[in-house]
């Protein structure tokens, strides 16, 4: 059995960001942070995708995380980055735990469309709600960390390092989860749910757990994005946002917990370059990239790193 190098690689990435972050321009640190936020959402989607489920509404939890962070700042004056991220994850997870009783009963297109419907309900609620800023959204307090407010020049660096550390911890936890019996059940659920039940396991319970974990990760990402951008709006729950997360997850592949973050960075790069080249038709470039990917790398970018196993 080959040695598990994932924790080592994750540690190296954290070290690289800590060092390189000192030399990178703030705009790049900003893009990196947003990439990490999106990668966290995609990490959760990967968990579901491994079990054969595609959530077309993961932006629901991204938005819940973001608005939790925003509301805590505005109502209670909380601006601590870590605290806001944890709160975003907790509220998202709690919501998913409740909704999971319904969603874990569905598979395939029904699961996908139901999750999409729920995210659009949240979108509708926020748009109609003046207290939540309606379509204008809300501004989020500037981040602090452990009671310290970093100066303007250091803010982006502090945020990207904190975000990377949080993402590395999340990725390690998910990596560990994937090696547990419940985590390993995912491909089995995808293949043959009847057999899973006749082996004495509950597929519905396993999916419910994965759904809650995925939501917590999305909430974490949402809160991070909110504090990084400094502004939240209902677009965060809109279906196109969910679509971007699915794009990243498919782009990345389900091979490893690092893949979603790599996917998110590539997505960010394509997005930035495409927007720069043609601001009015950047979606077309994005579409072309996805098309090329499906044709040439059907198992995602991560499949470049793994040698094909002979069947």
């Amino acid at each position, binding site marked *: 059995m080959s040695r598990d190098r994932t924790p080592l690689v994750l540690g190296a990435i954290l070290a690289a960001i800590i060092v390189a972050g000192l030399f990178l321009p703030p705009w790049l640190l900003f893009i990196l942070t947003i990439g990490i936020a999106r990668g966290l959402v995609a990490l959760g989607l990967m968990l579901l995708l491994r079990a054969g489920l595609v959530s077309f509404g993961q932006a629901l939890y991204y938005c819940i995380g973001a608005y939790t962070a925003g509301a805590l700042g505005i109502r209670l004056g909380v601006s601590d980055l870590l605290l806001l991220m944890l709160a975003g994850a907790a509220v998202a997870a709690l919501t998913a735990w409740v909704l999971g009783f319904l969603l874990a009963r569905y598979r395939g297109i029904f699961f996908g469309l139901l999750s999409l419907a729920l995210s659009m309900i949240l979108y509708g609620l926020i748009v109609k709600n003046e207290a939540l800023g309606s379509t204008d959204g809300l501004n989020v307090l500037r981040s602090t960390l452990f009671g310290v407010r970093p100066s303007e020049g250091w803010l982006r660096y502090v945020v990207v390092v904190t975000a990377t550390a949080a993402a590395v911890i999340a990725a390690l936890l998910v990596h560990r989860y994937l090696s547990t019996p419940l985590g390993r059940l995912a*491909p089995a659920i995808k*293949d043959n749910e009847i057999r899973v039940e006749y082996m004495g396991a509950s597929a519905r319970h396993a999916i419910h757990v994965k759904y809650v974990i995925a939501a917590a990760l999305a909430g974490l990402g949402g809160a991070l994005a909110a504090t990084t951008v400094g502004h939240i709006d209902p677009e965060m729950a809109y279906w196109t946002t969910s679509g971007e997360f699915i794009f990243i997850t498919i782009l990345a592949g389900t091979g490893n917990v690092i893949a979603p973050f790599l996917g998110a960075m590539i997505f960010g790069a394509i997005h930035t370059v495409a927007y720069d080249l043609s601001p009015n038709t950047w979606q077309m470039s994005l579409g072309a990239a996805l098309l090329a990917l499906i044709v040439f790398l059907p198992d995602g970018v991560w499949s470049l790193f793994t040698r094909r196993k002979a069947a």
Partner: protein
Amino acid sequence: MGTILDARGLHKSFGAVTAASDINVAIQQDSVVGLIGTNGAGKTTFINMITGYLVPDRGHIHYEGRDITGLAPRDITRLGICRSFQIPQLYASLTAFENMMVGIGVVLRNAGLGGFLSRGRPLVPGHDLPAEDAAERILDRFGLAQYRDKNAQVLPGGVRKLLDIALTMVAKPKILLLDEPTSGVSAEEKFAIMEMIMKAVRAEGATVLFVEHDMEVVSRFAERVLAFYDGRIIADAPPDVALNDPEVKRFVVGGELHRIDEVQAKRHA
């Protein structure tokens, strides 16, 4: 030998079709029971009721003195009643070894082992080996070691059948229900496969109920035969007695011939 499974007054109908009608059976521990009958006679319905896939309209099933009627398949599996399938139910995209590991993972999890915080390699309950070794041993017992790293979907029919049965052994069943273990297997291989299955089962120790259409296989491996016809059990005896029973000869063993006779009679008429 005590009674391990006791079915009393089982009744099940699907609309106008009666699939089980007043089934009364007590199964002794460590016995090997053959279930025979033509298609639609009620064998699989009987198995489906025991394993919780179907809930009987009337009647009760007691297992080790406990009423298990109406429990979900996974709960019944956890209690020690496992089944194989007529059409193998495998995890097609996983290798034979990975298939076993999924099953062992479930066993570990149900025993509260191998969780998120646990360290080291816990021993699989019933096998007293670490997960990987337990998987290897079962594969070995079923002659599947050479297919260890092959994906389930590319395995030949007979091997898929064996893997399906090997998967049921993971949970260390006390009762094993085999639904047509030799269907789709060539006539020459039938005995060899049954021989291997029975040897492996004896090594693990389990009560066996198997559905079979080949009467030679039944008479050789079953200690007791339950003959089903029209949702009822029309004979319950050792194979030499049951297979010579006039009703069994007419409705089960000679079932196919009987039908051909009828067709020919109609043609002549």
